[in-house]
């Protein structure tokens, strides 16, 4: 018990320095946590994709469309329970800066497959009654202050012209991670306009969402779909929804790699701050430690004292950092919510922080311990700082 008291007393000798060290560690832990959470949030879309949903798209790349007639053929394949067409519209709302995802979908079959998108039945009726009706996510509606009944103009990039839609429904996500920033409108409307203006582009879907009976057969069913269209002029590539989403997430591969590297460098900064403080402490206590040894304290006592102090500061920094992280991540999550849903700190991040604090605490004490133990008592007593 005495040893613990001594550790605390030692740490409190330079209150300001200890406070600053703990603060420095806490800030770095917070930065580490915020960055890791950002990477996690980026992957949220892939994390939540259920295993019984596949996506069938053109084999060449997602910029090519598939004939709508494929829908019925996919439907017939053994193990497939539902198919729904969708297309990436890529429209711009006033300015490219206002980016959000906008898709043409078949509302009934789409909502039936993507159960995490919740639309009130009476609102859905309104969408079905209006060819230009749109369903928008709650967060997207909040972002631009849209209400049901508002008209939203989109400038077509892939499908030329100025398009106008009327918001008929606002959807909510079933889960915390559900993307509530999408803009959905009627596939049959897009197709109709194409038939009139560019007949060559009518009857085409960007991809098909495919629901299967048995998630364990995903690979097999995917292969069956692809072989059905093998050697046709529009070959398909079927993958799980998770893989499909990952393909898009990979577009930020460099940023994600960069953030990962930075998060490790931050641990390096934590280490540097703590080593700095521990080195100062060791320097000040050279003669004191020599006295302790004269009094009969053994090396392991000194090691315990130094290691204990280092660990105590590391853990205090880690705990304070987690507190800061819990507070700031909520703010950051709110600020990012219109772009990146699912920004919240995972348990894993907290575990890593604790582990990192313990490891850093041990590492930072190595140099001071080595110094304290290796010096001869007589030299230690002789030191005047």
């Amino acid at each position, binding site marked *: 018990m005495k040893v613990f008291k001594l550790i605390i007393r030692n740490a409190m000798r330079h209150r300001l*320095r200890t406070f600053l060290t703990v603060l420095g560690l806490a800030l770095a832990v917070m*930065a580490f946590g915020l960055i890791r959470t950002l990477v996690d949030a980026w992957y949220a879309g892939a994390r939540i994709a259920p295993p019984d949903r596949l996506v069938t798209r053109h084999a060449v*790349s997602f910029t090519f469309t598939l004939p709508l007639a494929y829908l019925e053929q996919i439907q017939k394949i053994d193990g497939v329970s539902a198919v729904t067409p969708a297309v990436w519209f890529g429209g711009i709302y006033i300015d490219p800066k206002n980016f959000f995802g906008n898709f043409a979908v078949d509302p009934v079959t789409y909502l039936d497959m993507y159960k995490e998108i919740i639309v009130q039945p009476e609102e859905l009726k309104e969408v079905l009654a209006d060819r230009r009706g749109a369903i928008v996510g709650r967060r997207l509606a909040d972002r631009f202050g849209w209400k049901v009944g508002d008209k939203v103009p989109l400038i077509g*990039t892939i499908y030329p012209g100025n398009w106008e839609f009327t918001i008929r429904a606002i959807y909510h996500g079933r889960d915390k991670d559900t993307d509530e920033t999408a803009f959905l409108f009627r596939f049959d409307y897009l197709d109709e306009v194409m038939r009139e203006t560019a007949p060559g582009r009518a009857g085409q879907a960007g991809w098909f969402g495919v629901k299967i009976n048995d998630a364990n057969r995903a690979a097999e069913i995917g292969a069956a779909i692809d072989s059905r269209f093998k050697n046709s*002029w529009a070959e398909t590539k079927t993958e799980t929804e998770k893989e499909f989403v990952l393909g898009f997430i990979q*577009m930020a591969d460099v940023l994600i790699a*960069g953030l990962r590297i930075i998060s490790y460098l931050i641990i390096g900064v934590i280490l540097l701050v703590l080593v700095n403080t521990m080195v100062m402490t060791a*320097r000040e206590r050279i003669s004191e430690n020599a006295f302790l040894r004269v009094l009969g304290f053994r090396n392991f006592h000194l090691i315990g004292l130094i290691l204990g102090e280092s660990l105590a500061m590391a853990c205090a920094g880690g705990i304070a950092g987690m507190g800061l992280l819990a507070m700031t991540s909520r703010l950051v999550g709110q600020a990012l919510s219109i772009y990146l849903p699912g920004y919240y700190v995972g348990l894993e991040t907290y575990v890593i922080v604790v582990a990192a604090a313990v490891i850093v605490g041990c590492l930072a004490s190595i140099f001071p311990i080595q110094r304290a133990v290796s010096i001869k008592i007589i030299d230690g007593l002789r030191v005047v700082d």
Partner: protein
Amino acid sequence: MIPLGYTIRNILKHKVTTTMTILGVSLVVFVFAAAQMLSYGLKSTLVSTGSDDNAIVIRKSSQSEVQSIILRDQGQIVGTSPEIARAADGSALYTNEIYVLINQPKRATGELANIVVRGVTPKSLELRPAVKLIAGRMWQDAGSEVIAGKSAAERYAGCGLGEKLRFGAREWTVVGVFDAQGSGFDSELWGDVVQIADVFRRPIYSSVTFRMADTTQFEAMKARLENDRRMEVDVFREKEYYAAQSRTLAGFIGIGGTIVSIIFSLGAIVGAMITMYASVANRVREIGTLRSLGFSRLAILISFLIEAMAISLTGGLLGIVGASFLGMLQVATTNWDTFSQIAFNFRLSTAIVIAAVVFALVMGLVGGFLPAVRAARLKIVDSLRAA
């Protein structure tokens, strides 16, 4: 003013402490500089893709060639514009191109990436004099042959010289490799426009690029083409068009990198503060002596600030030197404006060096300020009495 020699000897006295602080600052500056270099590298690669003399026509509001569709007769209309420069043989210097994305696995990881296949004409090469064949030969029409940019050849399966890849229900052979001087074309595959359009059943063009006879007449020509009722197009200077393709990703990396660096810097600033407080605490008597010799409070304040900033400047320079080695690294990623792969280098500029140095100095100033104030506020009597 207290002599600089005094400050510097103080910095050198506690080597371990000084080193830790310098390393902390250098890590932050390294991250800051690396992010800016990445952003700048992407920007310069795309800027160098376009030429000042050329203009590019894409469909109105389509933003990029990926989404653009120019009907064939519209391509011919643009091609007959009087503003187009003439080649030595009198033909108009313009090219209709088609831009298609295909999935090919990366050699390194096997992950699928979107690669550009550009269907071009012989005039395309005349319009981009930087593009030079460095291995193999040109494709032959109707031969199912393509040539690959040197980054594409290196990075993606099936794109190296002599290798085969499959797209559009046909097997293609890479018969040549070209060097486009580090521009965006280095990440593309080029083949004959007629063949490429055929196999993808896209009887259209994505863009028309031409050499302007008189670049000063650009605005007038732009207005004329954009108001032509036979088509709906946007006309850009080629250089501006490509520069705009870097906007989203380069902006994101630049701004995101700065925000992360600032959050990151808090830890290093606190580290500098600890060092400087210790530096003050160790020298209380010295400070008293200096004061009694007649040095003012301001002189003490400045001396400690200089000490802090000298440490952070050293850290900053170390960080910049470290980051400059990244210049040897090439990165390939998806450009968000075109959805296609682009390879580019980390690239250092004077502006980045200056920004990084300023960043480091600010860190030293912020970290050193409170300790310097404490030093300056010490009373002579108290400090001389200190143990």
